């Protein structure tokens, strides 16, 4: 059976793509952020996941606002990136695991999560930048299952709903018959706001509270309304929903292994976290 080996949370600010392309990792502005990935690289080298299930939000590459799924699951063996119109370099494609995708899709719909299934799906910087950060050599030795959550066009799914989506995805992964090692990932955030007179809003105290509660007390975060999240975390800080889905997927014992938090990267409070997950079934056997 497949095992969930842990979770990764990371910011996905587009400017990171330019910094990577220009080789600015050691630049004083960027170093405090990129240094947070040294641990991630060691963890990946040790744990060697076969697949990564990525919770993220699309920013107008694959989905336009005319047809906006609340939750969408990719079911492809390859996911291309294309020009996003912001002057960031086009990324290489990522390999997918369509069989795992369809298993997750089947289990989700059986569990009454009526997701949109996508046999042709482009991934934007919210997936490609985290992969570039995880595997800086450019060799991505994992297959992905992208799961898009609408964080753009209100009404958005509630934090509790996204956490429960994660739980259902976690259950689906753990019922997959192949002996895969699977990591789950949530991208975006933390606090930031790009639009309006409140542009530039950052909330260090709330971000810290979120990071403190994610491992041991995620229920404290699922009680917020979307309106409260926008107020506390900024209009785009609601990308925390992706992190909550990632956390929800880990139903066993979860420990915080790593945290890096740096203000600012572009307009954003940048965070990188790694969580260890001890599988529920394994714990029973121990």
């Amino acid at each position: 059976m497949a095992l969930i080996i842990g979770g990764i949370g990371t910011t996905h600010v587009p400017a990171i793509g330019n910094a990577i392309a220009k080789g600015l990792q050691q630049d004083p502005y960027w170093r405090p952020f990129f240094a947070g990935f040294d641990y991630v690289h060691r963890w990946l080298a040790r744990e060697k996941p076969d697949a990564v299930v990525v919770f993220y939000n699309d920013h107008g590459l694959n989905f336009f606002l005319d047809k906006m799924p609340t939750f969408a699951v990719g079911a492809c063996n390859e996911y291309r990136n294309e020009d996003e119109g912001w002057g960031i370099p086009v990324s290489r494609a990522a390999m997918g695991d369509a069989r795992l995708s369809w298993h997750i899709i089947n289990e989700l719909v059986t569990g009454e999560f009526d997701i949109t299934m996508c046999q042709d799906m482009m991934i934007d910087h919210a997936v490609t930048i985290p992969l570039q950060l995880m595997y800086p050599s450019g060799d991505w030795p994992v297959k992905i299952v992208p799961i898009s959550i609408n964080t753009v066009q209100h009404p958005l799914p509630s934090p509790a709903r996204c956490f429960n989506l994660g739980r259902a995805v976690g259950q689906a992964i753990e019922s997959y018959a192949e002996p895969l090692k699977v990591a789950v990932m949530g991208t975006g955030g933390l606090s930031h706001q790009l639009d309006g007179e409140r542009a530039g809003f950052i909330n260090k105290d709330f971000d810290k509270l979120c990071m403190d509660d994610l491992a041991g007390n995620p229920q404290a975060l699922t009680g917020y309304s979307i309106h409260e999240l926008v107020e506390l975390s900024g209009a785009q800080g609601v990308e925390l929903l992706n992190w909550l889905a990632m956390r929800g997927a880990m139903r066993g014992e979860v420990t915080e292994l790593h945290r890096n938090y740096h203000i600012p990267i572009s307009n954003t409070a940048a965070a990188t976290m790694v969580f260890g997950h001890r599988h529920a079934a394994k714990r029973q056997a121990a």
Partner: protein
Amino acid sequence: MSVSHHAIPGTTLFDGEQAQKGLALNRMCFSFNDPANRAAFLHDEDAYCAKYGLNAAQRAAVKERNVLKMIAAGGNIYYLAKLAGIFGLNVQDLGAQQTGSTVEAFKAKLAAAGG
């Protein structure tokens, strides 16, 4: 019944009302994922905006390069950022414009938030 909330200052939630109002403007901005469309916009901005059916408020806001007015006319910031990209502007430039500060002052405010 929809739940009514207090307004969050300086924040326009991109909800159904905004989405409906801004569809033409956001559709035009979505087209800027294609470099040929970015070139076509630069070649003849009036014709390009007319092709996408922008209303008078949207056309005026685009002509003025005024982000707050584009948002008031239904623009979504992720899509407006694609328009800004045509002029080599990023979200920090947009943040400075919306808050009425210089880019340097806007960046300094962000850095100060790390305190």
